[in-house]
């Protein structure tokens, strides 16, 4: 009996050693399409498995604080990874700004508004009853949207029309379903395959809001830090960066 148990244990450890590694990556929902593709390429290249969990950065932050064992955390901003690093919950030197997000005006395909002609003035059109933005209290894209509205002297004029999505994907849902006539969304979302044909977008001038720097970090509780580092290194390669750019993420300000 004992021998068998030993053999079984030996077998399991050999299998575990041979089997490819697996990491779990928590990522902000605006990365849904871009990172799925990047992770897929990484899997094909290295034979390792990448499990992706998409959601709100704030939720992941709270989960990591409470002991979640993600191997890499891609936040939609710089604050959450910084806070994790400061409190020792993430490995500070692994903090890396992987890109900057852009915000756009977006209307459904059947909208009478011509964004190309009207630009930001589309928000003031009488046909617009509700304007969807992400919640500025915690969503980075919402913060940028509010800042842009302020800087372009539109905030006071549209404040009563604003409806807040919990995250940028839900904000998109408000507009795509026609309940809000126009929305301020992430560029990465509106160029994604599922949204591309559903409406038109107009890029909000980048100088009207503070840049949305987005950073990744490896949490201290990561189960496989080596593989996590390998994955981050892959995201840095020109091949992966090209995918990110294709989905509307501008390259990071300084590439190390």
């Amino acid at each position, binding site marked *: 009996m004992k021998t068998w148990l030993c053999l079984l244990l030996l077998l399991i450890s050999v299998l575990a050693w041979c089997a490819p590694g697996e990491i779990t990556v928590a990522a902000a929902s605006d990365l849904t399409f871009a990172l799925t593709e990047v992770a897929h390429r990484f899997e094909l290249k290295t034979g390792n498995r990448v499990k992706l969990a998409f959601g*709100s950065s*704030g*939720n992941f*932050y*709270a989960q990591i604080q409470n002991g979640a064992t993600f191997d890499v955390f891609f936040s939609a901003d710089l604050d959450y990874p910084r806070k994790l690093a400061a409190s020792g919950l993430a490995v500070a030197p692994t903090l890396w700004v992987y890109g900057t997000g852009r915000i756009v005006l977006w209307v459904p395909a059947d909208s009478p508004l011509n964004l190309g002609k009207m630009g930001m003035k589309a928000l003031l059109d009488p046909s617009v*009853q*509700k304007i*969807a933005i992400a*919640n500025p*209290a*915690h969503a980075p894209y919402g913060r940028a949207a509010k800042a842009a509205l302020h800087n372009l002297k539109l905030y006071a004029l549209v404040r009563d029309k*604003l*409806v*807040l*999505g*919990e995250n940028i994907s*839900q904000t998109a*849902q*408000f507009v795509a*379903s*026609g*309940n*809000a006539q126009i929305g301020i969304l992430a560029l990465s979302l509106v160029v994604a395959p599922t949204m591309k044909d559903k409406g038109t977008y107009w890029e909000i001038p980048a100088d009207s809001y503070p840049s949305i720097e987005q950073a990744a970090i490896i949490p201290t509780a990561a189960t496989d830090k080596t593989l996590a580092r390998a994955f981050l290194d892959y995201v840095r390669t020109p091949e992966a960066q090209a995918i990110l750019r294709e989905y509307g993420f501008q390259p990071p300000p300084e590439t190390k």
Partner: protein
Amino acid sequence: MNWQALALSVKLAFVVSVVLFVIGMPIAYWIAYSRWRWKFLVESVVALPLVLPPTVLGFYLLVAMGPRSPLGRLWLRAFGHSLSFTFEGLVVASLIYSLPFTVQPFAAAFRSVDQQLAQASATLGVSRLLTFARVTVPLSYAGIITGLVLSFAHTLGEFGVVLMVGGNIPGVTRTVSIDIYDQVQSLNYVSANQTALLLLAVSFLTLSVVYAVNRKVWAL
């Protein structure tokens, strides 16, 4: 502590309980006494909100309220604005969401009333409606209070559906559960804890009332 959100939630829960009382009575009566063969289908529809994830229900409602659905278009034409992102929209959503919590206790209570009493009332020439009001309802007291309090409490703690159709407008659709969620997301854990604790206390109190009534603590 966001008192505005709490007040809004209480108002929503109150309105929903009152409306559910009115529409829940006939539905529960029908479910309790109908002998229709396909009654189970209606019972299943009434119970659906118990099973469906609130976000799914919320998504269906969002699409139904939007200008691309016939219902949404009809409402838009009649009132000039969409039902989504309004207090009325939340009321409609909560009515569907909390319906089983009213109808099921009502129906169970009606069913347990001794039918000989209702028959006696009928032989004395009293109409069905009056029999219902004077015999069935008084004997179903505990079940009716349970249904009302449960729908109130359930609406008070509603989250997913409100998130999907509300749009988080302060004083209009930002309910207490949404406010707590926002506080947590913004890392204001202390404030979130305070509001959550208050919600917990209110919920405990309401549920205690239900069980006290059922145990006839006050001999109603």
